[in-house]
């Protein structure tokens, strides 16, 4: 009796009872389902929803591993125990010490995200009596990558429950949701616990704790992990050069710092045809366009350098792509097939507006230094409208062509 047959007999035993979906899910997650359908037309293809989800997870894994190393690196760097380094293959970056600190912080985030999220999915599957859906597999991996390293686990758990129930289950589960669940979770955290989600303390492991110790009277130096956007917003000088931003040696949310690995992940997603290159490219074009507009405003001398928007507007337009999380959002969030536009023309419009609005929020609203998640959520809401007009426009054009022929 192997594991497979054990599972199979368990599945048979619970067939028709309330808990059946739970056992079915476990079985199909580990093995292929051994039932085949017999009637109707069949299309034979190697990929199913599970395969698609797994492809995205594979594309995310490098970011996760890098995030662990970076968490440790930023921690020790802030403590002054190691020197700042540069380049992707720096010896002081890929060390066991860094990895251990990072794993100790990041793995609990992953476990809480998956544990709570899947528990909610199982609960809904049992109550509603349908199969457990694969939808949470990707969300569960995205969530730890888009939160600050020191976020308390119970906050993450509350947010995951909120995101899965309000963001997905009430619309009918996987494939029916309007908003991206991972971003719903991040938005909930951002508005609920702003002190843990923004500012210059939360991005480096230990900085908040250190602050509390200073508050109780211990003599320590405060750690500052100010993000690049925060520094620009206050017209401060930037401590990192462009290559640091590109390789990812900067403080930030767990998985979004290394632009290099995100680009590799993007190529992988495009190559496997899981992610839409149209959305990725148009998002970046949108961001560059808005950056160019702001640069033009500065060049034309319409605002002086005492203006509160000057610092962010003055960033060379191409740098917007390597600062903050626009690239991560474009590659992993905007391309979510459920919440994005479905039509090809719609995808261009959808992506372009995400890029445009992201940079607009980034520059104009100092309270939300990173507007990417808000921009994507907003466009999620508008995606069906965009599709509607694209389809209607197409219908109209064809009707006109038909009329010309008749005449």
């Amino acid at each position, binding site marked *: 009796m192997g594991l497979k047959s054990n599972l199979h007999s368990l599945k048979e035993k619970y067939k028709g009872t309330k808990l059946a979906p739970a056992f079915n899910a476990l079985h199909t997650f580990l093995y292929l389902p051994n039932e085949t359908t017999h009637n109707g037309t069949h299309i034979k293809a190697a990929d199913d929803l599970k395969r698609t989800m797994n492809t995205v997870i594979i594309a995310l894994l490098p970011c996760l591993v890098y995030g662990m190393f970076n968490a440790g690196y930023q921690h020790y760097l802030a403590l002054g125990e190691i020197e700042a380094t540069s380049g992707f293959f720096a010896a002081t970056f890929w060390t066991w010490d860094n990895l251990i600190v990072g794993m100790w912080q990041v793995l609990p985030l992953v476990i809480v995200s998956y544990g709570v999220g899947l528990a909610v999915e199982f609960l809904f599957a049992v109550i509603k009596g349908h199969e457990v859906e694969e939808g949470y597999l990707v969300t569960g991996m995205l969530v730890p990558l888009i939160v600050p390293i020191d976020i*308390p686990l*119970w*906050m993450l758990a*509350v947010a995951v429950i909120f995101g899965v129930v*309000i963001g997905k289950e*009430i619309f009918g589960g996987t494939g029916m949701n309007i908003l991206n669940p991972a971003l719903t979770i991040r938005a*909930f955290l951002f*508005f*609920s*616990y*702003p*002190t*843990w989600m923004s500012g210059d303390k939360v991005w480096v492991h230990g900085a908040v704790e250190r602050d509390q110790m200073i508050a109780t009277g211990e003599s320590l130096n405060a750690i500052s992990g100010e993000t690049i956007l925060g520094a620009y917003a206050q017209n401060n000088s930037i401590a990192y050069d462009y290559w640091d931003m590109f390789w990812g040696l900067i403080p930030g949310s767990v998985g979004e710092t290394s632009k290099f690995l995100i680009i590799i992940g993007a190529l992988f997603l495009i190559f496997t045809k899981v992610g839409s290159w149209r959305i990725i490219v148009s998002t970046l074009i949108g961001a560059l366009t808005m950056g160019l507009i702001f640069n033009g405003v500065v060049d034309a001398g319409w605002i002086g350098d005492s203006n509160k928007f000057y610092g962010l507007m003055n960033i060379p337009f191409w740098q917007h792509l390597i600062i903050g999380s626009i690239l991560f959002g474009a590659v992993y969030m905007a391309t979510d097939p459920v919440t994005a536009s479905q039509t090809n023309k719609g995808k261009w419009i959808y992506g372009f507006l995400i890029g445009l609005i992201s940079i607009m929020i980034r520059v104009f609203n100092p309270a939300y230094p990173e507007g990417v998640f808000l921009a994507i959520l907003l466009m999620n809401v508008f995606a069906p409208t965009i599709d509607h007009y694209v389809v209607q426009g197409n219908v109209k054009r064809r009707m006109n062509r038909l009329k010309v022929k008749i005449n």
Partner: protein
Amino acid sequence: MGLLSKKDAKLIMDPLSDDNPITIQVLGICSALAITAELEASIVMAVSVMFVLGIGNVVISLMRNIIPSKIRIIVQLIVVATLVIIVDLVLKAFAYELSKTLSVFVGLIITNCIIMGRFEAFALANGPWRSFLDGIGNSFGYGLILILVGFFRELLGSGTLLGYKVLGDPIELTGLYAFGYENNGFMLLSPMALIIVGLIIWVQRSRNPSLIEDE
């Protein structure tokens, strides 16, 4: 209720659950979102609406046979406006701080759809006593949801109830806060009120499937 006939009792009891103005008729949402960040404001709002709707319904019912139907909306507005101004002045005189919290929303009771809705749908066609019961019942239903939403928003958003620190002190770190608990800032924003109202609707309809509309 021995005091009321069965039909009259229904006027009071229906709006509390199966014919609730907010969760079933989806009226008066605006004020339910705007002023429910604190329980106290919710209660005062509920009482104000009860005063306006109870008395307004009686007044309209008494006048129902002499109002020309072409100008009935204007007459109704005058009645509501008069009552709302009374409420506003009373609040300003005896609870100034609270009236500042409620700010424009006391004045906006005039535009609360529940009030005009009940005038139109009930008071114009029924006698004063039944209209009074209907007004009280509907404002009870409205107030119930308001207080429920206000309860959760104040408890989870500020950690207080009616201003009392029931969850401990967030600065002194007592009570729940000693364990790292923090207030949920999202609860103080209006979108969360909408979500709570939505959750109440969800619970109500899953308890009573007959309320679910056919598709």
